[in-house]
């Protein structure tokens, strides 16, 4: 299936969980927040949330500087 990660198209296998996607992409889950289709997904939901074709995944880097 085709999904989109931070504005870039990505081909992913069916039934992929958000957690699996992050692992595949080598993302440090402790340094980000994640949204799907503009809704933030809390990390306790990452293992059970199955990505759907066309999903837009946004990885938000933890930014605390000021």
């Amino acid at each position, binding site marked *: 299936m085709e999904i989109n990660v931070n504005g870039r198209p990505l081909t992913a296998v069916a039934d992929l969980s958000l957690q699996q996607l992050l692992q595949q992409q080598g993302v440090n889950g402790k340094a980000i927040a994640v949204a799907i289709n503009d809704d*933030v997904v809390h990390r306790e939901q990452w293992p059970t949330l199955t990505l759907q074709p066309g999903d837009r995944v946004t990885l938000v880097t933890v930014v*605390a500087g000021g």
Partner: protein
Amino acid sequence: MLSDEQYLRYAAQIATATVGEHGQQALARAQVTVVGLGGLGCAAAHYLAGAGIGRLTLLDADVVQLSNLQRQTLYSTADVGHAKADCAAKRLAAVNPTISLQAMQQRVTAANVCQLLSGSDLVLDCTDNLASRYLINDQCYALGIPLLSAAAEGMNGQLLCLHPQHAHGCYQCLYPSGVQQSAACERVGVVGAVVGMMGTLQALQAVKVLTGTEVEWGKLFLFDGLNLSWQSLNLPRSVQCPRCGGNDGN
């Protein structure tokens, strides 16, 4: 009633539909606390003082360093080595001597945060570290005070507008304890105009909140300064959040 001087001083914003005469009076009655007087706080506090916020409290424990001057617009080279809170208050008093300014050379801690934020109508989180951000979020939720939180690094900015009386998530929902912050500004770098813009947006949101203009609470606004693009994300409550979770969480 506004004085003749107030009409003159604030004529440009009184002329807007957003502020108007009633809005100007509301700003004059407001008590706003700005925590952190770095790149965000300098920009935010400058616009808030100019706008005529009646009582403005400024908090920062640090002294001005030469490397701050690239982005911290309230300070001059002669201020290096002096307390930011004092320098900022002096500069802002020159901008607008008609408002009440309280400057405190203090860092927020678990022991003092309640006392420092109590009585505020609105808090602006302009700090540069996660520990302070959690403390401020927790205390604003405990006291029921709306919170405008911004951050910037590199070419990127984030703005989060939180209202404890609304059913959206809080700072702890977005970044639960245990997340990792990248290095502080001086190591990861930040472009002055990016952090200044985020602070300016905090001031803009503050004026809207205080004048009763509708604000999108519970949204995380992401700014990409490289491409000049924006994205906004909805932040729902987390049932596991120790601060705001439970009712309406998901």
